[in-house]
């Protein structure tokens, strides 16, 4: 227990070093506990499917376990693990896109467009936060993935521009530009909510 308390007091970078050097499983578990929820939130907002996002975050932790030695101390641990999760999430999107090419069913996103139309909702219902959140999430899924990722990291996960630039391997200028475009697209899609 004393060891665990000590471990819980360590920073992310110290914990992973402990895991790399001594193969301390407790250090690994602490990191998993710290990052499982933020990663779930990030991946869910990006992919839009709860079951898939659980699998993706599990795979992220597995990759972290297997490739712990590929982490280098000069980078933040959060940046490293967000990069792994982001790449797996993008792979999942590509897989879905290929599947959808051969699908004759309309995706749920197509049907959701009608919900955003004001004529389908009474004004009081549109203020309902649950429906509003659902609308925002659906609109987010319609934003281009390259913009969506950075908007989520910035506005939902509250990461800094520097951290986002490291995760996405882009320059800070490009990150800012993409965030701006993503927000513009999102605002346009949600004009029924924000036009007063």
């Amino acid at each position: 227990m004393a060891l665990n308390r000590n471990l819980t007091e360590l920073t992310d970078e110290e914990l992973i070093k402990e895991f790399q050097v001594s193969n301390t499983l407790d250090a690994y578990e602490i990191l998993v506990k710290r990052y499982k929820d933020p990663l779930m939130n990030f991946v869910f907002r990006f992919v839009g499917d709860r079951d898939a996002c659980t699998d993706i975050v599990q795979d992220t932790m597995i990759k972290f376990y297997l490739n712990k030695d590929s982490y280098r101390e000069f980078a933040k641990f959060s940046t490293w693990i967000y990069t792994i999760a982001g790449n797996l999430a993008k792979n999942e999107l590509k897989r879905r896109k290929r599947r959808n090419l051969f699908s004759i069913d309309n995706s749920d996103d197509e049907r959701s467009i009608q919900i955003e139309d004001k004529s389908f909702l009474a004004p009081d219902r549109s203020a309902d936060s649950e429906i509003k959140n659902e609308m925002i999430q659906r609109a987010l899924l319609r934003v281009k993935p390259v913009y969506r990722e950075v908007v989520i990291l910035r506005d939902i996960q509250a990461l800094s521009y520097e951290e986002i630039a490291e995760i996405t391997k882009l320059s800070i200028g490009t990150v800012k530009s993409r965030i701006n475009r993503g927000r513009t697209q999102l605002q346009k899609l949600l004009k029924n909510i924000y036009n007063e």
Partner: protein
Amino acid sequence: MGINIYNDEEKQFSKLIKDLKELPKVEAPDNFEFQLMTRIQNKNFGENPLPREKFNLVKFFAPSAVVVTVIILFFVFLPKDEQFEDPLMSDPQQIVSQSTSESDAISNKVDNNSGRLAAIPQTNAPSQTLNADVNPNDAVVKPSSKYPIFNSRSVAVDEYINGENKRKNTFQGNVVKGGENVPEFDGFFIREEADKNTIERYRAMIDSVKKAQAKADSLKRAKRAE
């Protein structure tokens, strides 16, 4: 975190950013860590596969069978060169005609002006005639023994077109123009450019024939005189 990390440029999106921040946080399921550690202990490190479409043998083999069938048919019906020869694509053969000295009755007509020697056969036997131009630059037609030239069946196309070939029978015209009673077409032949030695040899042969004839004529006259 009370620090305002947004600058003034983002004021136009302030409402949107606020709503995004206030979206409910999605959390991992309760058994997330249990499942994870179970996978690690069981060394089940494969990515959780999402249901994929099974490999469909019919879908794979059907187009493959079509492709294979097309390839087989292509080679089966591939035209074989030995079955026929396209006369328009094949190179015409050269013909060499043999000179005659001891052949059957052949009358030679010498046109002294042009130096042309034209032989007119009296039979339809395989050509042993010489149709030679003594000028060195002219071509000499030399039929090979493999392709005997029947005058009734062969035409010098250039001469025919120029009107120089005075046809002795209608077969020659039919050879060029086609129509009824067309003899079997053996093909186009080209004339071989004669070399000087060949011309000299033929010239010598013609000279010896002339001499022999002249001698024969003088002997005849002498006999009559007696």
